């Protein structure tokens, strides 16, 4: 006996599980086919509006103005695929990842009655997680797969012949070429297909014969089973970068639930946790957490993350998140005489997070020069990240000359300028003041005109009457002394 656990329209379901507010709205998943993007899957609401797979966005919008488009999300599919696998594993350890959104389980050893019960339970469990899963049970893997496609949400095949007769031939997943021929032949059901003899169908080649065998449900096969993953690692990329904490916590909770489930069926607990936030500008925020009291309670692990994230401010929105748990065997703790014990592990994690919050996320990490004309523009990368590529050499020769000692921060300065050309004539800062006896410039720089990051500045090199040489910058009408030349 075999069971097939499947999630129809898997790629779309994977996304909807993470965006549950879209469930009641028409949604379509787009996929690129050749030069054009076309609809690959759509939910029930979209289907009732007349949206069908294969349509272009325009055609679909013509039928359904409120249609929401989504693109495939590999991370959402990974998460959903794993959820499916872990749940299938609760039926039997002989699980095959047969296809995208489809697991086949060898349940030969289980009694049929308990199978129905546990099957029912796992389908409900998946529903709770947001996946509309179906389970088919039958004598062969192929039959079980067909049954899963008919299941609402559970189907056990008893009378095989009548079950197969009216099934659409597409259920047997024929290659497009074969499907095309069958369409031209006027063959739409498996019954019509198997009405032809095996010899007759052999004119379609090995693929045709294979299809005929599948449609008859005659053949069984060995499963290529997969064992439980050893790593406890999840990640997710957001379709739109996040700027608020709530949606991030929602996803973290989903990840933790799944990992906790994995820990549970692996009989393990987490002794540590690593968080990684991918930021939009390319930056990465990393943070490791020790779990002083190993656990698989997702609530507890989430609170540790929440405490840290609450005080975290990032320069850029978050475009992706990764989470890893360090597992250890579940064991009864034996307190040794000299074993250092954390009295309250939750408080410890919170304290570390608060310390980080105090120092400031923006002030820790490694400074890397940006590839920009903007002087001294840089970004921070967390320590330990692999070093980015160096900047391309500019075509201008390197500027040689006097060394500049920079004032950090630059000094605000009042400057009197010449009327016509705006050359500085006099300047007055807190400690530096005087008449300008010579100057060169302005050196004009500007960039990033295409959004709110736009900047512009003019720089002058000035010599004061006392012999001091300074770099002066005018930024949006304000003057700054940026440094002094040696």
């Amino acid at each position, binding site marked *: 006996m075999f069971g097939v656990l499947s999630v129809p329209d898997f790629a779309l379901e994977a996304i909807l599980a993470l965006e549950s507010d879209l469930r009641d709205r028409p949604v379509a998943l787009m996929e690129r086919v050749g030069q054009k*993007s076309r609809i690959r899957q759509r939910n029930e609401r979209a289907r009732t509006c007349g949206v069908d797979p294969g349509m272009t966005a325009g055609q679909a919008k013509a*039928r359904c103005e409120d249609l929401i488009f989504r693109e495939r999300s590999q991370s959402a599919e990974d998460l959903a695929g794993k959820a499916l696998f872990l749940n299938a594993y609760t039926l039997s350890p002989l699980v095959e990842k047969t296809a995208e959104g489809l697991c086949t389980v060898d349940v030969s050893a289980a009694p049929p009655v308990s199978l129905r019960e546990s099957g029912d339970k796992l389908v409900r469990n998946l529903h709770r997680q947001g996946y509309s899963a179906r389970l088919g049970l039958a004598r062969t893997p192929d039959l079980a797969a067909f049954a899963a496609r008919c299941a609402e949400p559970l189907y056990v095949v008893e009378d095989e012949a009548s079950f197969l007769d009216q099934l659409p031939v597409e259920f047997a997943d024929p290659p497009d070429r074969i499907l095309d021929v069958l369409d031209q032949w*006027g063959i739409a059901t498996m019954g019509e297909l198997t009405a032809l003899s095996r010899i007759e169908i052999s004119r379609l080649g090995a693929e045709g014969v294979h299809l005929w065998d599948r449609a008859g449900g005659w053949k069984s096969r060995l499963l290529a089973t997969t064992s439980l993953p050893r790593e406890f690692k999840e990640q997710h990329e957001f379709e739109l970068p996040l700027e608020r904490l709530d949606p991030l916590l929602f996803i973290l909770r989903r990840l933790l639930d799944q990992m906790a489930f994995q820990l549970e069926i692996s009989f393990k607990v987490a002794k540590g946790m690593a968080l990684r936030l991918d930021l939009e500008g390319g930056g990465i925020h990393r943070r490791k957490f020790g779990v002083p009291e190993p656990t698989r309670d997702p609530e507890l692990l989430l609170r540790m993350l929440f405490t840290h994230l609450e005080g975290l401010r990032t320069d850029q929105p978050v475009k992706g998140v990764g989470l890893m748990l360090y597992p250890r065997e579940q064991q009864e703790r034996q307190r040794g005489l000299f074993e250092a014990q954390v009295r309250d592990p939750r408080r410890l994690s919170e304290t570390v997070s608060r310390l980080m919050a105090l120092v400031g996320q923006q002030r820790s990490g490694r400074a890397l020069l940006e590839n920009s004309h903007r002087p001294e523009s840089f970004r921070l990368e967390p320590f330990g990240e692999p070093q980015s590529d160096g900047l391309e050499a*500019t075509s201008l*020769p390197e500027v040689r000359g006097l060394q500049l000692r920079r004032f950090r921060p630059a000094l605000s300065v009042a400057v009197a300028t010449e009327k016509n050309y705006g050359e500085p004539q006099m300047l007055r800062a807190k400690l530096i003041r005087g008449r300008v006896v010579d100057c060169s*410039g302005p*050196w*004009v720089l500007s960039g990033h005109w295409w*959004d709110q990051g736009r900047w512009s500045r003019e*720089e002058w090199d000035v010599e004061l009457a006392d012999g001091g040489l300074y770099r002066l910058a005018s930024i949006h009408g304000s003057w700054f002394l940026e440094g002094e030349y040696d």
Partner: protein
Amino acid sequence: MSNEYIELHARSAYSFQRGGSQPEILAETAAEEGLEVMAVCDRDGVYGAPKFHSAAREWGIRPIVGCELTMDDESVLPVLVETRTGYRNLCRLITRAKIRAPKGESRILWSELRFYSDGLVALTGDEKGPLWRARDRDGHKGLKSILEDLLEIFSRGNVYIELQRHRVRGENLQLRILRDLAQAFQLPLLATNGVGYATPSIRPVVDAFTCLRHKTHLDEAGRLLSINGERHIKGPRVMQKLFGDMPEAVDNTWRLGERLEFTLEDLGYAFPRFSTPAGETMDSFLWKITFFGAEQRYGGLTPEVRAQLERELKLITRLGFSGYFLIVWDLVNFCRQEHIMVQGRGSAANSAVCYSLGITAVDPVGGKLLFERFLSEGRKTWPDIDLDLPSGDRREQVIQEVYRRYGKHGAAMTANVITYRGRSACREIGKVLNFSEEMTNRFSQLYTHGDFPHTLELERQLKKAGFQPEHPRTVALIRLYHLILRLPRHLGQHSGGMIICQDELDSVVPLENATMPGRVVAQWDKGDCEDMGIIKVDLLGLGMMAALQDTLELTRRRGRPVDLAHIPKDDGPTFKLIRAADTVGVFQIESRAQIATLPRMKPKTFYDLVIEVAIIRPGPIQGNMVHPYLDRRAGRAPVEYIDDRLQPILERTLGVPLFQEQMLKIAMVMADFSGAEAEELRRALSFHGSKERMNRVQIKLKKALQERGHPPKVVEEIVSAISSFALYGFPESHAISFALLAYGSAYLKAHRPVEFFTALLNNQPMGFYVPATLIQDARRHGLRFFPVSVQVSEWDCTVVNDTCIRLGMRMAKGIGKENALAMIEERNGTGFASLADFQLRSGFNRDERRALASVGALNDLAGNRRSALWGIEEELRADDFFDLQLHEEDARGPGPLQLMNRMERLRADYRGLGLTTGSHPMKFCRPHLPDVWRASDLDQGTNGKLVKVAGAVICRQRPATAKGFVFISLEDETGISNVIVTPKFFEQYRLTIVKESFLTITGVLQSQEGVIHIKAEKIEPMARRGLSTGDSHDFH
């Protein structure tokens, strides 16, 4: 010239993604900044030179020609043209590099430069120039050696050290190095600003282009982008201040400028000489053959004809155009010898000489056509003779003949500059701004049928596609879109314009490879060539010419030939067909707008048809001439004239000006303009002219009219009529040429429909309708179509008898011509005895066999489509006799598959042929549509009645002149119903209209003078599964 700074290094947008401003804008800005001279040095070409030349002249600036040459070491060497020899050298140099490189690339060899350096002045360029490249490569030694090379190639006095200052820290050090080099080599310094755009506000365009060139986006481009916006045009004062420490660099600009004497006025173009028989000059020979031809065509010369010919010939001789007429005459003779149908169109039809030479088919004397529209005293440009040829191989034969006669470097197609516009521009800008591809794709898909800014501005289009309007990048997108709009993107080739030259054409304009093999294209477009006085011959392909020629050939082969030259001009059935707007497939008068006008116009004579052709044009529509004419024609309005003197001019068109010739005559009569002045007025008001020029001639016309004492109302009426009309109006002669084709095709449709529809199908794509619509129309005319059959069909469709057409193999999708012809040859030897025999001998692969079987092309061998589909799947081996026997027995049996039902056959037909020879799909739906009117029943409806129509969308149209109204044609099994959609309604149902192939439309029936429209009130997709339709004709 005052001793001030002039700009000698500027790139226009014709540097293709390397410059941000149109040449005209550069000229205008230069004038505003007080520059007296400016050189445009586009990259690897002189693409923008004519436009800059014309604009600069208008703004009082002396335009200098230059070019940035990409060298084989990737350095970029700017050169300026000093003399005509220099210009010829530059053109030849670029041509050599372009012709040997892949399209769009060019690399000049340092080794060849020395042979073409005469008359050119070299600058050392900017950071991409040879100096810094050499230094980067070989250090300071490299600087010395490259300067020695430049001096050797260009010689002393012709090499300048170029200095640019863009207010970038560190550049002073570079300038010091350059100054030291200049001193060491005793070379002059030259200040330039290396202009990349007219004003600082255009800098984003250059940054965007940089991204496109490097296939990156703004977030990634980093230091590839410009450091500031200083590469704009700067006036003398600013540049003098900027180079205050090196005044000689500024002084040298005007010194050099004085030396650079060459401008495009000194192009040195000469049209090829025609080799005449011994003892004849070109002039005398033209006189001789003209009068000889006139005798033939007129059958004896009346004094009027003789006088006209003499007047024309005298003018042609005086202007030196005899050679041109002889060459075109010779080309027309070539076509006749090769049995290629040819007809001159356009203003050439105003010439009795052209008529006598057989170039045109219209008698201008009899038609009282205005010769001045074609040629007049004092005219600066060459006359324009356009030849219509059958499209396809026959036109290509003529084009290749021109190349053969004048050589690869002696003739070229004119360029067609492809510009940034519409959704493709938006898509590229979206990429530059790092919008996701999905987002830009979505925008493109939502607006697949072009942009309609007159009803929905870009901002709203973007919003509808999901771009947040307040997002800074959306703002940047819109800004960039408007900046980039209409800038040149790349060079294509014009559909038919060819230019030829007495000597090598590549010394007049650089030539390069076209994408099409065997074609060479010039760097200038049609307008540029015209402005530069280069003569062009338009060899235009007309699908209808090909169809007509094929029809006539078919009538000849069937033993009842038709000669279009001798058909009656007042044929009753032909005019009946035209008046009934039964004109699907007829040249010009088949469009929806024409069909809607014919029942109101009710043409009775050939000249009515001429007016019909001309009236449905943007000019008369925009000038509000259509309704007054139709009202006067129907007697609803009196025939009036703005002035009594206009009566002889406008009598034929009931006092309403419809033709360009009438406009010219009005200007001549009312404002005393000479023929040349009137023609200049027309040209200035045409779309090639600049606003400035347009304003000037309007003022001149107004002044002339006022001076002659016309009342202000008359002045206003005339100026407004001429201005709105000159833009798009048809020349009367052109309308007559087109009307000849329209009448000819209508005659053939009325009298020889079987040959006519066969020829139409064999020349697709052409005209307004797809084959599916043509076949449905033919069926309504009693014709029957036999399906494609491998046993009978030829490659082309063929005539079976007076009422039947056999579809050719060309109609089957997925069947290549070569394979089909091979199969036909095999069949013609010994016919196919069985399906197995066909499989073994036809040479078709399985996919092709499947395509043929599904459309019933194998029914003659297998009995029905399913048997054929079943049989062809079996792979056979010729040497396996036993297998073959079995297969043949098998094929004779009924086969295990069910026969196709009607809907299945219909679906297979549309899928495999794009049409059906059977009933229209709507016939099958009819039982499910009890409340839907058939197209043929609409004439029984009363005006104002609410009706519902449904059908396959065969045409969606949104003419620019219709103020946003959309016209939809729905086809059902009985005919075509026409629907009008208001702009507001269109925006509401845009996607349904644009995307759905079958529509149900409810609306109010409007019946006016036999023209029936439905004004849409509700539009729904029919969304009936399994329905199929061919393609529609969209938004023309």
